[in-house]
């Protein structure tokens, strides 16, 4: 039996979810420039505390930057902006980064195409896709978000996992899960 003067059972639930999935840090809300900077600072500190290898640290950090940029790119109303989320966790020795945000259903369709396209590319293909060498056509096709996703795919070395959840006729919730292997 719990001893309490208020129902805080959700704190225990959160603790359990965090422990079970090895999440370390989550932020849900508006992503302003300052907040983005702070989130990156916390991540960096956390990685330093854990004595993570420099190359992994760099990868995690860079993927995080790209994910945050993808989230920040969306201009939505306040309520929708508050639904954006970033999480960082660990699976065994690998790092995992989730980002989630609301996008228009039109964007969801083109984003899904981009993600599928990127996932079909080999590591070599991805590596060749330097920002500077992208043709105007590629740039148009990928857009800012697409370029970010290519970068994420390159750095993680794994296929991008994603999910779109329809909210209403106009918007969907987009979740991206990026795995960064230790070796």
């Amino acid at each position, binding site marked *: *039996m*719990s*001893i*309490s*003067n*208020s*129902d*805080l*059972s*959700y*704190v*225990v*639930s*959160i*603790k359990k*979810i*965090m*422990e*079970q*999935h090895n*999440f*370390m*840090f*989550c*932020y*849900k*809300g*508006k992503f*302003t420039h*300052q*907040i983005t*900077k*702070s*989130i990156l*600072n*916390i991540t960096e*500190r*956390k990685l*330093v*505390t854990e004595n993570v290898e420099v190359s992994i640290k760099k990868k995690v950090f860079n993927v995080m930057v790209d994910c945050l940029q993808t989230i920040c790119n969306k201009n939505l109303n306040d309520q929708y902006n508050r*639904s954006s*989320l970033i*999480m960082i*966790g660990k699976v065994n020795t690998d790092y995992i980064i*989730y980002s*989630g945000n609301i996008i228009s259903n039109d964007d969801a369709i083109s984003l899904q195409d981009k993600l599928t396209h990127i996932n079909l590319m080999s590591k070599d293909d991805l590596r060749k896709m330097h920002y500077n060498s992208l043709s105007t056509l590629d740039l148009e096709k990928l857009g800012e978000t697409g370029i970010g996703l290519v970068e994420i795919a390159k750095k993680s070395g794994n296929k991008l*996992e994603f*999910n779109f959840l329809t909210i209403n006729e106009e918007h969907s919730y987009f*979740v991206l*899960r990026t795995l960064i292997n230790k070796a």
Partner: protein
Amino acid sequence: MNAFYELYNVMNGKHIIMIYEGEFNQEITKTVLSMTENSFGDFGIESGIRKKIFNVMVEVLQNICKHQYNNHSAEPSALFLVGDNETDFIIVSGNIIENSKIEIVKSKIDKVNSMSKIELKEFYKVSRLESTLSDVGGAGLGFIDIARKTGEKIEYEFSPVTSEYSFFSQLARISKNDLND
């Protein structure tokens, strides 16, 4: 993806904006504090309230730093949450506590919760004189400080983990509307 939605739903339902789980060292604490200090300005929060949030946060984080080692058989670990709903900011800490200490902590919080503003001020003075540096949180100065700064009752829950340990959650609420000081 289930893990994501599971956490998303709790955060959404309870208006939680930030969760940190793990070891707290000085650097992490500093970064978390500066995040709050810098970021809440972007939310259009009045500087008086921001100051209060910051001060309460310092107390709560200090509390975490002291008690994260409570479970001697595990890695140091604690939970820190920040919430933001329409009327209040909430700051929650969670850490392991030995069952034998629950009654002491509970009675300290209950005592603080039962006091008026003036009584708290007096109690703070007396407790500060009585406490010594080595006496870790002995007088419950942190609780008095939080109660004085928020002007609200401290909410708590001790939920059993094993026959030896429980999980102690503590919530401080800072109203967005009134500036008592």
